[in-house]
């Protein structure tokens, strides 16, 4: 508890508070804007890690993460074309509410629900992450290897609808991760000195998220912009409060565990929350026409899951969403390696970050309720400027890594790959996670086998590793059985579609 109070002391310095405010405002703005999400924004802002101190930088990124989750719901309520798959479910009832003149209430229940879920979620991180880190710190390389393999497997094969496409993304990512000289020999560098240090993850992330998305949208830009439902100041009646608070809590209960598991993802818990609320509601006739429970529950689940993903990120160093992956890159840029020792080695930073999450949540509520009409206006930005701006900042982000035109060429090349991935429904997340975790997987394997002097059986010599492999086997069998079962009626729901690009 003392640690957390010290954390608040760190987070409440005027400078850090300023970064938190910038973070949540920027995060909400990019969450609202089409075509750009928190993962892309953090990727574009990675250059700040060169000069902003680590604590402030991470407070900024965490604010963007939380703000992005919030902004995404505004878009799906007012536009009915959710850009983030985590807010697909919110759009189901939220947009119906907006169309029947209850946009203000939908936004209000989303905002307060996000606050409730985010606060409870952050509280759970504070309680869980140090304990998990204490357990994880005792694990050896074989267990790490197993946990990383599990994370790669779940991100690839459990999330998303098509396993073959998940694996394609993962192995392209692993292939990109091979480039460089980490093993002492030049791998996949084709003799190029610029490739000897490997391909910068910043360039990969910016290319796949920003360039790929901008090019894909450019090929399919709507000729006529969508109608934005105008909205005033969000508010809720007594009745709305009464109908919202239970879904908020249930949504949080669904969202956090899913986020905290290496399986990650907000799609499953938001959907579970939606069907639960539909079953429990006293107003079943309103479902499908704009039931407030159907916004309150999934929105809470969405934010609780975002909070949950920070547990594996901080305690094990495992990213399970795209934004978490890019935040991990930011930490590595600072020379920080999240994982079990992280919390003990960097208490000031970690607790300052956790305290700032509480602050970010409160700021989101305080700022965003009055700002909702402004965010709605943001949806009308001229599209040529929006996407030209994305290309501009993406190029700047990639160029500022080394000031090499070569990086811009890589950006274009991998951006083309990102375009093709959107065309062929190849999910982005496994690729990014593959680029980041591939080299670390090799490192852990090397370490495990060095200790055992080449004896491969060391890989299943630790109980945790064995349990993880069993979980993997169960997931594999389970997902095969599930997909067999769902084969006849092909999935029509959009949330089964390719994995979230912006989460």
């Amino acid at each position, binding site marked *: 508890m003392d640690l957390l109070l010290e954390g608040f002391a760190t987070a409440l310095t005027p400078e850090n508070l300023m970064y938190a405010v910038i973070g949540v405002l920027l995060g909400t703005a990019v969450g609202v804007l*089409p*075509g750009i999400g928190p993962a892309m924004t953090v990727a574009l802002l990675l250059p*700040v890690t060169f*000069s*902003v101190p680590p604590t402030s930088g991470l407070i900024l990124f965490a604010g963007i993460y939380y703000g992005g989750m919030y902004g995404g719901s505004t*878009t799906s309520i007012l*536009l009915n074309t959710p*850009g983030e798959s985590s807010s697909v479910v919110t759009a189901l009832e939220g947009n119906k509410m907006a169309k029947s003149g209850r946009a203000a209430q939908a936004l209000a229940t989303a905002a307060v629900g996000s606050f409730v879920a985010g606060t409870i979620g952050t509280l759970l991180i504070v309680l869980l992450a140090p304990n998990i880190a204490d357990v994880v710190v005792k694990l050896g390389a074989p267990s790490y290897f197993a946990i990383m393999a599990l994370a790669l497997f779940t991100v690839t094969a459990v999330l998303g*609808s*098509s*396993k*073959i*496409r998940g*694996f*394609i993304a993962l192995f*392209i990512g*692993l*292939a990109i991760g*091979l480039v460089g000289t980490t*093993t*002492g*020999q030049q*791998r*996949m560098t084709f003799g190029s000195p610029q490739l000897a240090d490997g391909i910068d993850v910043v360039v990969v992330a910016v290319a796949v998220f920003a360039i790929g998305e*901008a*090019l*894909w949208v*450019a*090929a*399919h*830009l*709507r*000729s006529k912009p969508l109608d934005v439902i105008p909205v005033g100041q969000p508010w809720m009646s007594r009745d709305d409060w009464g109908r919202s608070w239970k879904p908020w809590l249930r949504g949080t209960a669904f969202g956090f565990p899913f986020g905290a598991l290496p399986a990650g993802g907000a799609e499953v818990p938001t959907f579970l929350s939606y069907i639960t609320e539909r079953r429990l509601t006293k107003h079943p006739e309103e479902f499908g026409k704009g039931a407030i429970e159907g916004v309150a529950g999934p929105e809470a689940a969405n934010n609780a899951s975002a909070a949950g993903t920070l547990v594996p990120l901080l305690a094990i160093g495992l990213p399970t969403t795209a934004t978490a992956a890019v935040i991990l890159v930011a930490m590595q840029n600072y020379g920080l390696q999240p994982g079990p020792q992280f919390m003990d080695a960097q208490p000031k930073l970690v607790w300052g970050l956790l305290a700032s999450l509480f602050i970010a949540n409160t700021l989101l509520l305080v700022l965003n309720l009055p700002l909702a009409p402004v965010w709605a206006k943001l949806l009308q930005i*001229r*599209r*040529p*400027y929006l996407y*030209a701006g994305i*290309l*501009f900042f993406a*190029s*700047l982000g990639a*160029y*500022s890594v080394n*000031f090499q*035109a070569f990086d*811009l060429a890589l950006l*274009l090349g991998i951006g083309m790959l990102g375009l*093709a991935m*959107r*065309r*062929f429904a190849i999910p982005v997340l496994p690729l990014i996670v593959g680029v980041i975790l591939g080299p670390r997987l*090799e490192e852990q394997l090397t370490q495990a086998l*060095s200790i055992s002097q080449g004896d491969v059986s060391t890989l299943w010599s630790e109980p945790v590793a064995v349990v993880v492999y069993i979980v993997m086997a169960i997931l594999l069998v389970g997902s095969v059985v599930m997909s*067999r079962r*769902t084969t006849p009626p*092909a999935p029509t729901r959009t949330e089964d*579609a*390719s994995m979230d*690009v912006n989460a």
Partner: protein
Amino acid sequence: MTTTETTTPVAPDGTTRKDVAQYGLAGFLLVVGIVVLIDAAGLSDGFADQPVQPYAFPYVVGAVLVLLSGLLAVATWRGDVPEEDDGEDVDLTQGSDWATVIKLGLVLVIVIATIDFLGWAIVGAFLFAASARVLGSRTLILDVGIGTALSLLTWYGFYSGLGIPIPAGVLDGVL
């Protein structure tokens, strides 16, 4: 690696269609896989303290890429159709406008070719204005104005705000 494809092979008009372009993706994977394998074959044994040979991972990655390429080709032949990425500004009903994409690609190629000489301030302004024009903006002077403002602001912002001196290129000494 079991691959049970669930995507429906039935087109809106009820007939079965194949996504021929997906063979291209399969071909790409095959090429990348083979390149990784060839590269791995050229690596020599690691040091004595390297229990995992430098070529071990590349062999696995390359082989799996080749395998995935085959699986994708088979899935495509059996009528697997990808569910293209949707989004707020994406309208999948009106077909794909690849001409715009090629033009944007050309803009980026020009940027890559000239950035070392001209520097970020000029190239950035060109990048913004040209992309906006390709994407349908018809207010040239305004676009160039915004582009110039953005590139100057970011250049000075990086220089004084973040302490990152972006090379000024031909404008060295002017900025």
